[in-house]
């Protein structure tokens, strides 16, 4: 049973226009224009409080944005619209299990949709997809589960719906490694078998890289569509009119071109950072930071390797090729030097 998924650029699954969302007087989301393609898997990356969950709630039409419009398949939609209600489902960050058995939790969505056939078989399948045994778990009560088991039951309750859009808010936050793999597989299968569009927020970059077509990076409510980038937060000191510096506690200094408007956070794109083994004599505009590699992960899609470099208490990310790794003899623990130009900075 293979479906033919057509991804037309003209009519994306989602189109967000001039979205702003406020809690009280605080703006937590500010998105000019964002399109999410049908059948794509989008990763959502960003620090705590950057607005991931808020964005997912908007995409689920569980909340109305304070300002702006959200089009789903070209149509402007609002919460509770019946045309979307049964198609889009969200796994919330703190999934709530109904005070019922696991079985009844999982079939809840089906019952709402008045589907009553083969419930047992479908539940068994959904549980299997998240690595739980039907015999062992179906009759348990909501409170008789460990944290990760509860999370996976909630995931099963979403998978059973075969949704058009599956929004996952930290689906593997308390899930073990093996189950994380299962959830990845289930997500990929959803796209393959049902053409599901997925948006997934997670702090586990390695896992996210292994599943997404592309990443959106979100910071303070602003979206960067290039995936994860290096963020350097203040405080900065003024060195002269045109430059700011950040002093690390171990004495190293980062020099950056000052922003034109007031801004407090610097973004240095990973593509602008190079890596070498030794310091070179350079001019003052080039930052040279020494640190060591803490991890090297495979980004499946591009077959490139993402390395995390610890520079005192900063953690910076660079892209490496297998070639480079062999040439420089890189491995986790190896000391390296990072280079980037002080004008290669964006401020927000």
């Amino acid at each position, binding site marked *: 049973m293979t479906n033919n998924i057509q991804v037309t650029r003209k009519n994306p699954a989602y189109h967000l226009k001039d979205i702003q969302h406020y809690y009280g007087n605080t703006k937590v989301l500010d998105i000019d224009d964002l399109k999410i393609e049908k059948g794509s898997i989008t990763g959502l990356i960003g620090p705590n409080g950057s607005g991931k969950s808020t964005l997912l709630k908007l995409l689920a039409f569980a909340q109305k944005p304070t300002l702006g419009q959200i089009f789903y398949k070209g149509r402007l939609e609002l919460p509770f619209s019946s045309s979307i209600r049964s198609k889009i489902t969200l796994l919330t960050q703190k999934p709530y299990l109904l005070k019922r058995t696991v079985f009844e939790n999982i079939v809840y969505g089906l019952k709402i949709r008045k589907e009553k056939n083969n419930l047992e078989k479908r539940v068994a399948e959904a549980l299997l997809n998240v690595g739980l045994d039907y015999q062992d778990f179906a009759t348990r009560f909501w409170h008789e589960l460990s944290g990760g088991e509860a999370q996976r039951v909630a995931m099963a309750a979403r998978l059973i719906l075969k949704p058009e859009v599956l*929004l996952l808010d930290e689906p593997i936050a308390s899930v073990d490694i093996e189950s994380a793999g299962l959830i990845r597989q289930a997500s990929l299968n959803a796209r393959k078998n049902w053409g599901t569009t997925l948006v997934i927020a997670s702090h586990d970059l390695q896992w996210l890289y292994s599943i997404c077509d592309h990443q959106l990076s979100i910071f303070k409510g602003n979206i960067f569509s290039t995936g994860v980038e290096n963020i350097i937060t203040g405080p900065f000191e003024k060195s002269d009119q045109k430059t700011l510096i950040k002093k690390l506690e171990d004495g190293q200094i980062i020099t950056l071109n000052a922003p034109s408007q007031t801004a407090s956070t610097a973004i240095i794109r990973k593509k602008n950072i190079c890596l070498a083994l030794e310091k070179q004599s350079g001019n003052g505009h080039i930052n040279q930071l020494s640190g060591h590699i803490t991890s090297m992960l495979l980004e499946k899609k591009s077959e490139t390797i993402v390395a995390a470099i610890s520079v005192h208490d900063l953690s910076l990310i660079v892209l490496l090729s297998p070639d480079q790794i062999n040439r420089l003899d890189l491995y986790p623990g190896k000391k390296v030097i990072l280079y980037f130009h002080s004008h290669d900075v964006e401020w927000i």
Partner: protein
Amino acid sequence: MDFIVAGFIKAIELLISGDRATWTAVWATIKVSTGSMLLSLGAGLPCGFVLGYFDFKGKKHLRTILDTMLALPTVFIGLAVYAFISRQGPLGELGLLFTLTGIAIGQTILAFPIVTAITATTIENIDHDLKLTLVSLGAGRRNIIATCLWEVRYGILAAAVTAYGRVLTEVGISMMVGGNIKYHTRTITTAIALETNKGLFADGIALGLVLIMIAFIVNLSLSFLRKQ
């Protein structure tokens, strides 16, 4: 003190002997309290849901009014209902005065704020995540109401049981609207009031025990709904 002991014995006698006056009062009580509970739950649960679930302007004031309604004296409700359904009242045509239906209407007014207030409080305490979860699973408005109420079923049960206790024991409305007419609108509570006034304290105690027994049977059957 002895009249309490005498009351116990009398209670058993009354029930066993099948005393007609007692049994008609038992029936009247059951009918009227069942009717008013159905009405007040039917009206109170949705109202309580709305008041607990949604945020809207003036909600707090509404709550204060509702809480005040918890202190409507039964005689007051009785008088007000009487004013409407007495022959000279606007609804006099319906002939509800001195009927069990009339009492049930009054008792519904009595029970409604209890059901509504406790339901609202219980719904208010619902985890915010529940709402989000329901919406995210595709629940429509009706599903949300039904599921939320079911999630807090123990709270709802408490609301119902409290209201039931109130309805079962009230005298003012039954007396004023029902008229305490023997074999017709005499309920157990109005009978108790009467016997006590006669100085037949033991009979009052006996009838009180009969009422408590009804409540006990009802609660015993409800206890299967409780958390195990």
